[in-house]
């Protein structure tokens, strides 16, 4: 057991899944000798061979459909999209096929597949490399959307995603790839795909977030704690299906909620959470549900990206307003 980064945890989970199950394949651009542009697949080619670690042509429209075919044949393909900015040609296949195949064939054909992609901003990447568009997938029936925020959760959630019999979109916050280290036991333990993680207890306020924003959210919670305010921090982790039970329970206690995500505000996954609070949680709410999110603008290039991305200051400001609301 050693301290590893999130990207190392991804690699560890991939290797674990591949060694446990011969049907697990890794496909994508530059996943072979290069080991992936973020090195998430480094060493897998050497260890598992070119039959299981497959460098594909530059064909994103193909990838998800290829995985559907492999999945229907009983393989468990894990396809890497190099950046989320290049994942959109896959939506057609995910929506029209991967998420439906089991249902439309009444369980005859299934798609045990994982689509992995680094996503999000904060690393001064080139144009189209920093967006967060998880909401596009979270609206699609029949699939799961999972976002880890720490090395340990990345390991457990990715194992779960690969073992899951249905399609999973697994989005990795690249800003966190190397930002933190954590002890991760390579014990093959999967994390649940139907539950949020309560990272911090607190009865004054509920902060809900995922991905790279967890760090900012925890920082805000720390700052609040200094002034005696105890904020619960929930890492949603699985955005679809959404574990509202955990969120509702926390908000029942706190009465106040701030949701934080990097993606553009309008129609982000925060909207769904807030909408559920406006329905099932309304009677608990003591203050308006605030969302701290990216603006509804094009994600700016690096010179302005820090102004776009929510940070602990903005979270704190929203939290304070929420707490002061009476």
């Amino acid at each position: 057991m050693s301290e590893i980064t999130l990207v190392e945890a991804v690699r560890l989970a991939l290797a674990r899944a591949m060694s446990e199950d011969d049907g697990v394949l890794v496909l994508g651009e530059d996943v072979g000798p290069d080991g992936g542009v973020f090195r998430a697949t480094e060493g897998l080619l050497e260890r598992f061979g070119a039959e299981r670690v497959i460098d594909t042509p530059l064909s994103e429209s193909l990838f998800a459909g290829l995985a559907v075919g492999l999945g229907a044949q009983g393989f468990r393909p894990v396809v890497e999209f190099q950046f989320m900015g290049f994942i959109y040609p896959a939506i057609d296949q995910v929506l029209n096929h991967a998420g439906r195949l089991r249902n439309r064939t009444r369980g005859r054909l299934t798609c045990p597949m994982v689509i992995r992609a680094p996503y999000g901003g904060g690393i001064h990447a080139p144009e189209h490399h920093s967006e967060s568009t998880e909401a596009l997938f979270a609206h699609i029936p029949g699939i799961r959307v999972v976002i880890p925020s720490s090395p340990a959760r990345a390991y457990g959630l990715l194992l779960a995603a690969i073992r899951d019999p249905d399609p999973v979109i697994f989005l990795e916050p690249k800003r966190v790839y190397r930002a933190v280290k954590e002890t991760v036991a390579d014990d093959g333990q999967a994390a649940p795909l139907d539950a949020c993680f309560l990272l911090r207890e607190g009865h004054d306020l509920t902060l809900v977030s995922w991905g790279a924003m967890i760090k900012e959210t925890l920082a805000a919670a720390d700052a609040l704690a200094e002034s005696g305010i105890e904020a619960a921090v929930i890492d949603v982790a699985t955005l679809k299906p959404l574990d509202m039970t955990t969120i509702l329970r926390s908000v029942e206690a706190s009465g106040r909620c701030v949701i934080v995500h990097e993606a553009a505000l309008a129609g982000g996954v925060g909207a769904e959470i807030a909408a559920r609070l406006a329905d099932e949680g309304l009677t608990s709410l003591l203050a308006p549900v605030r969302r701290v999110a990216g603006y509804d603008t094009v994600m700016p290039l690096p010179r302005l990206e820090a102004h776009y991305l929510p940070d602990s200051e903005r979270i704190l400001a929203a939290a304070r307003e929420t707490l002061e609301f009476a």
Partner: protein
Amino acid sequence: MSKVASFEINYTRFLDPQGQAVGDLPSFAQDPAALIELYRAMVLTRAFDAKAVALQRTGRLGTFASSLGQEAVAAGVGAAMAADDVLLPSFREQGAQFRRGVTMTELLLYWGGDERGSDFAGPRQDFPICVPVGTQAPHAAGVALALQLRGEARAAVCVIGDGATSRGDVYEAMNFAGVRRLPLVFVVNNNGWAISVPRAQQSAAETLAQKAVAAGFPGRQVDGNDVIAVRAVLDEALARARAGEGPTLIEALTYRLSDHTTADDATRYRDDTEVSARWKEEPVARLRTYLVEIGAWGKDDEEGLLADCDREVEAAADAYLATAPMPPSAMFDHLYAELPRELEAQREALSQSSDEGDISG
């Protein structure tokens, strides 16, 4: 300037439109029984299509895509494939699907709006009908890769239309198949039209077979109204695939004698004269003429066959019409392997509202 590469596209035909053999027939076609089987398959498909159109016209079936005039493509594909090959059809290959064990009742259920129609009891690995044009091509590449990785001597067959050849994902699948030398046969069911768009407006390529040139594997043309040619070319392509020699693209030249679907009115965009001219080349009469000429088929055979087909089609239609819809909550079945807790409340709500409300499908 120096020449660095060159390519050619060849065309295969054994029976001309008048049902006359041009050159020697392939060996399987020396046996009249084999030809009769192909003939039966085509006639059955035509009977099914007619029945399905009639059901639609009388409000008992949804939109339906007839394969009238294109029966030879499906029959040839169906006959050439081995049982353990995998078919990834478009939506006009019912003839091939029947041959593979998909039942008529299943396909009627499908077009009648019931998901159970894609739960084929027969060919469990075959893909269901694919409506978003060409999107089954990536699946075919995935299936073929699976067969290849397992080292099996099986092949996948992906049938697409002429219109589908303009789709980027079809091209990507072909290109990938070339790179990996996949055991995959692409059949382009070129019926001259993509709804109202004629073949010439679909691509400036002289043939659709040459789409394979871009992907680095052989492409060939075949007379798609000559079931012997279709079957023979498929046989070769499947043998290549099984032998690890990679993919083949086969462009089958045929013609859509029907409307695009029952929702279409082809008189809006094409001349009747074109259609009547093409009736002279249709595959069923062509093979029948040949069979009759070689003395392998007669009036009684024909009458018997038509009666058989009629019986079979009627029985399938009856079974379809007698199948009650699934309960509404079935839409939550098979959504995931296990329904997420989150969705239980929705299923519950649906069950309640569909018991209470006055909602009939």
